[in-house]
């Protein structure tokens, strides 16, 4: 087991980083959706008033 771990530690670390990035993205997208930002990428300031989202 330890041998396998030591042989693959690089892959495990990189995989963890990728998984963390994906989790952060999913979390940020869910938060944006909750805040009503999902439909337009959340850039209310650039949406020129056509967007109904309240200014935060």
């Amino acid at each position, binding site marked *: 087991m330890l041998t396998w771990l030591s*042989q*693959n*530690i*690089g*892959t495990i*670390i*990189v*995989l963890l980083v*990728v998984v963390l*990035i*994906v989790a952060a*993205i*999913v979390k*940020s*997208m869910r938060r944006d959706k909750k805040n009503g930002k*999902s*439909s*337009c*990428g*959340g*850039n209310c*300031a*650039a*949406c*020129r*008033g*056509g*967007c*109904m989202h*309240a*200014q935060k």
Partner: protein
Amino acid sequence: MKIKIALAGNPNCGKTTLFNALTGSNQFVGNWPGVTVEKKEGKLKKHDDVVITDLPGIYSLSPYTLEEVVARNYLIQERPEAILNIIDGTNLERNLYLTTQLVELGIPVVVAVNMMDVVNKNGDKIDTNALGKALGCKVVEISALKGTGIEEAAEAAIHAAQNTKTIPQHSFSGVVEHAIAHIEEVAVHTLPEEQQRFFAIKIFERDEKIIEQLGLTQDNRKHIETDIEAAEKELDDDAESIITNERYVYIASIIKQCYKKKNNGGLTVSDKIDKVVTNRILALPIFAVVMFIVYYISVTTVGTVATDWANDGVFGDGWHLFGIGAGEYEDVSGEFGDAANVIDAFVTAEGADDVADAIDTESDTFDASAAASALDTFAASVSDDATADYTLVDEETLAEEDVTYTGAELKEAVATYTSYGCEEPDPADYGVWVPGLPGIIESGLDAVNCADWLKGLILDGIVAGVGAVLGFVPQMLVLFIFLAFLESCGYMARIAFVMDRIFRKFGLSGKSFIPILIGTGCGVPGIMASRTIENERDRRMTIMTTTFIPCGAKLPFIAMIAGAIFGGAPWVAPSAYFLGIVAIICSGIILKKTKMFAGDPAPFVMELPAYHWPTVSNVLRSMWERGWSFIKKAGTIILLSTIIVWFTTYFGVVDGAFRMLTEDEISNSILATIGNAIAWIFAPLGWGNWQAAVASITGLVAKENIVGTLGILYGGGDGTVYSNMASHFTVVSGYAFLAFNLLCAPCFAAIGAIKREMNNAKWTWFAIGYQCGFAYLVAFVINQLGSIALGTANVFGIIVSIVLIVLFIFLLVRPYKESTTLSNRAVKVK
């Protein structure tokens, strides 16, 4: 105590610019009316207890438009502590009409005369003290754009909120005042004294919404009606017109006292420019030239240089810092490349496979000295006067040139080739070389001994996909600078006006063009902006057609097709924009002639703002906000999509076993299976390969995804993404692919916006169906007729295309029956 200050004023008088300056906000500012539909709030800088509300631009407090309803409801129901009324100093008469109504609300008003810099520049004079006395409130001079006087205006509004009351100075004619006094006594005496006058005047105007809000009894209404009718009889006009006329008479008297114009009747610079750019004949050609230049510069020239650096440098092999060593490397690389071409020509002509194997640098058994020796032997075996034909392909333009080499040239070429050790010169050996991101990441992954599958996911999936999208950021930023400039200087507002003239001929309204203008940035706010169109049929039609205009997200795709399939031809990107406009106009004409959308076009009243030089900060802010939105999307939704696309591309079933695939096996992947299942649908459009089919589907997540997906799918194997794409498409099928993806259903976010704005599932599906159907037919005709030029035409396809074109022309030119019916109705009413 918290103080609420409302910013109110006519459309395009500078409210949002002032709001941004007062609150430090970043709200979008456009030089056309109707930018703000919703009210927006922000805290006044250095005053945490003062909230500024930016209201939509309105001409009056009558509830005729959505903006007027939003603004009026806020003022009546929320009752801010003060109103900061911004008026355009260059157009006092029209702006003061709203002011005369605001001062009647019983809320302290401070008038800020904006654009004083322009007024002074024109040599005009406004006596603000006299204006203040005539209106019964404080008047301050400001220039929101230059930031002068804005703090004083805010302080004056805070002071007014705490200390003063605004008492209207204007009295209507005797008979009207008599009626108003009666109304106050009968209907609104229970309201606070300062509010009674506003409500009484509105009741006199028979404002149904106010009457409903006050809940007047039938008896009271009858009683009041007698007074109103008496006034109408005496003044021989309807009540609303009486109030309007008397307000304008009052405004005229104020202007006489307070305003001195230097050039009465002379043409302003804006008028002179408008004489050319809105000219009946020249307007459209000028617009076409302007947009051609915008897209040409953004996509083909300046943008391409930057995007090449991003694609080939940052997300490619790397780049020479500040170009140091780039020239020297290009020389040696060119020399080596020429020699390689000559050798390739003879090796192919002579069928010398053993030599080809010996010089294959990617072979595991490659040995430089063995390669040199094989080449020397081969060159010696070819006589000096022997010849070999070769076709040179220009990487940039894809232009082909046939050349013939001689045996003597081969000997020189071999000498050159072997002098480089039979290997392509390494750019890192020349000047200051900065490796590209993929190279850096690959070295890092190799250093930690990362597994091949994870390396593949990161390099061939995430970096290739996201990199392909981000590589286009420079082009997008250049385009956004141009669009921001055209919007801010006032030109785009003219285009809405010019388009209205054309649209109206076909029963459409210029109002539909505003959402289209907004849609050039992003389709979602474009679709949402359609809610300002009161006519439901026109609104639905606008929602259905707005996304035909290429949004920012489609630009990378357009640029990719132009670069990969058309060798960077300058006409491709502008043609995509005009294809969108033509699709909108033609769809509008065709749909308007159907029962579902028939009806007179909604009136389109739009004030053309004066031209002005936009501030650099405003243009850069607009550019950055749109660009940042794009970058953020690449780092979130696009990144997730690339992981899914990579996984489904590099995993699949081979010989009954599910496993990771090599590059040669991706035709067995999950994505290929899905793509092959649907590719037949697109075969009549000329691109029935699974890669293009799945790219179109992933484009529904976000349009940038098409580029990301193509970057992954065409990234493997020999050659670059562009060269691999060029080998899969002809110019005709490439343009059909472009046309389909530009016109078909937009991304899910925009489809969601369509669903919300339609508020009806049937209409939403109809809109998506129409867009996909229209896109399919356009791409079909392009491919079938274009194939005639390529000599690959199909008789059945040509016949169907001709039938479609005839049907299309019939739908365009058939008489508009409903219009006649409606005009007849109008005549009957008269």
